[in-house]
């Protein structure tokens, strides 16, 4: 089992929580794991990315080589495309479709979605809307984790325990909201395309 994952988004959108949750689950399953520090300014509003690698075997590099990523998880649609050179031919792109528009030259939404749909393996999900539907509007990042979860060879239960560990100190209510968001994202992805993985 090996998953090389690029996490992307805009500063402040919570990609670190996604990485930390996957990390916790990987640790529980005795998998090897490497995560590079988030690249990008620490302020809000700029492009940020992180490389996350999990594997049964020992992992060498903290950074994923070009063309080798199995998965791009992006909490913002334009940001999902910024790291395409890292994606392998068989890799999946799982992205939120709600744009974060804070620049004057943000591309046309329809053209942007067309670029995403050009990819043979993609899941485009309106994570913000789904998060609102399950009454957890601030958990769109966990919706994204849910949508990406069928592509991770980690059990649902492990990821759920990961969420409990990461959000545990914020209280049971926050944990529950995040798990519901996670489930909603997962259900969407499974219905979106028959990926065949549990």
């Amino acid at each position, binding site marked *: 089992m090996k998953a090389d994952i690029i996490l992307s988004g805009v500063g402040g959108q919570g990609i670190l929580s996604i990485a930390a949750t996957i990390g916790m689950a990987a640790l529980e399953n005795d998998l090897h794991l490497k995560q590079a*520090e988030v690249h990008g*300014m620490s302020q*809000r*509003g*700029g492009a940020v990315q992180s490389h996350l690698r999990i594997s049964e075997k020992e992992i060498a*590099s903290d950074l994923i*080589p*070009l*063309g080798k990523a199995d998965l791009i998880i992006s909490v913002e649609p334009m940001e999902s495309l910024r790291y395409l050179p890292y994606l392998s031919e068989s890799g999946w792109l799982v992205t939120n479709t709600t744009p974060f528009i804070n620049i004057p030259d943000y591309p*046309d939404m329809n053209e942007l979605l067309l670029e995403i749909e050009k990819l043979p393996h993609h899941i485009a999900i309106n994570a913000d809307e789904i998060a609102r539907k399950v009454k957890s509007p601030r958990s769109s990042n966990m919706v994204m984790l849910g949508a990406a979860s069928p592509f991770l060879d980690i059990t649902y239960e492990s990821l759920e325990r990961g969420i409990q560990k990461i959000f545990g100190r914020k209280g049971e209510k926050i944990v529950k909201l995040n798990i519901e968001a996670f489930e909603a994202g997962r259900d969407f992805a499974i219905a979106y395309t028959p990926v065949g993985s549990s």
Partner: protein
Amino acid sequence: MEKLLLLGAEAIAQGAIDGGMSGVYAYPGTPSTEITEYIQNNKTAIEKNIHRNWSANEKTAVEAALGMSYAGKRAMACMKHVGLNVAADAFINSAITGVNGGLVFAVADDPSMHSSQNEQDSRFFGKFAMIPILEPSTQQEAYDMAYEGFELSEKLGVPIQFVLLPFNARKRYKGLLDKQVLMEEEAENSKYNIYYEELNLSGEAKLKTDKSFGIIACGIAYNYLMENYPNRDCPYPVLKIGQYPMPYKKIEKIVNECEKVLLLEDGYPFVEEQLRGFLDKSKKIKGRLDKTIPRAGELNPDHVAKALGKDVKAELKIPSLVANRPPELCSGCAHRDVYNALNETMREHGKQKVFSDIGCYTLGALPPWNAIHSCVDMGASITMAKGAADAGVRPSVAVIGDSTFTHSGMTALLDCVYEDTPVTIIIADNSTTAMTGGQASHATGRLEEICIGIGVKPEHLKVLTPLPKYHEEMVKVLREELVYEGVSVIIPRRECIQTVPKSKKEKRIKTEEVV
């Protein structure tokens, strides 16, 4: 054994705690901030009452750590690479004074300048100070090096790169020179400097050894090399370096035995330059200097693959519609209101430039504000404005943050007051160290007293509230002070929009406790 999921910075912190450290001293700076934050939140550190408050700047941090070491306790000072420039005086002389308790300097470099103004390589500083340097390749090594660093420091007296350590030089330079032999011996026998000649990178016997090439890989570069051999079956001899001074005998061996030598190191060509020397025009050494590896920027597995003649496959391109997204001032940030007022006032003075400094407010250099025009080092804005005023520039304006001001702006203000130089200094006070994530600011609650104490005249010390509704008032005050022929300090004060919820909660908890 306990399993923990740690970033490299956190591994250093845990290693230092487990290694018996009594205090950490630091000023926040990406990517070093997490070391101290981890210690601040660590249960053991709290129980043992390990010193873990922030320092005013990196120089005071290194000096305090040196003082703790003098008193016989183990101490660590943490900073980002440019922080070491600020601390350089104390850092270099700590190698001369020597240490009692083990002293470790953790210095985090930022190749490719992800959040810094340069990509200077801190290994040069370690060499300059003539102290050992440890360069970890993995989180586990980062932990081990921090843990063992104190003992090594006590044994030799020394600092480390990612984890940098100083040394017991017995108060005299000669002593430090004499110790070089010991440091070299330590490095030669270090478990972090390994020569894989007959063995694979996995420790099994090599099927064949091809000496047409030898590879020297420093720190994290070793990981990028292994990435290119998934089965760890690199046919070439490999020397992995993790401790300096360089293991000269091992280097001599690999250079003599192999036809060519490829140097893989992040940061500057530190080892490469020493091996090559400027007289050597031979083709034997390959690395950053002959462009086998790009001269600048962070090393990665793809650069290494290309240097080894392997294919790098990136099938997909970035679509042309993807636009740049630089970071920006948050919506509702007080700096926005400061720059709106400053821009309006400065327009009355033509194309005059504004000096500034390092913090969130540096983003005011970008559109739509384009309000500031310099960013050099912590505290430079005030003294640069002074120099410009001395050269006749009017108005001469500096914009600096509250935390940057107490880091390195106070002595600059004293220079201005000493000559009553006509400068207008805007201390944008958001009551936190915002850019690195909202650490405490030493200025909070005492800015006016500091300025008055340094000698600013009370009638030219103005405190404003940066909100759109006070725009006109801010412009009026700025307009008056810009033309004043002496030192003015203007403090626009409104808490950082990111820390407001947190501090409100803390206040509520405190109130409840009182009740």
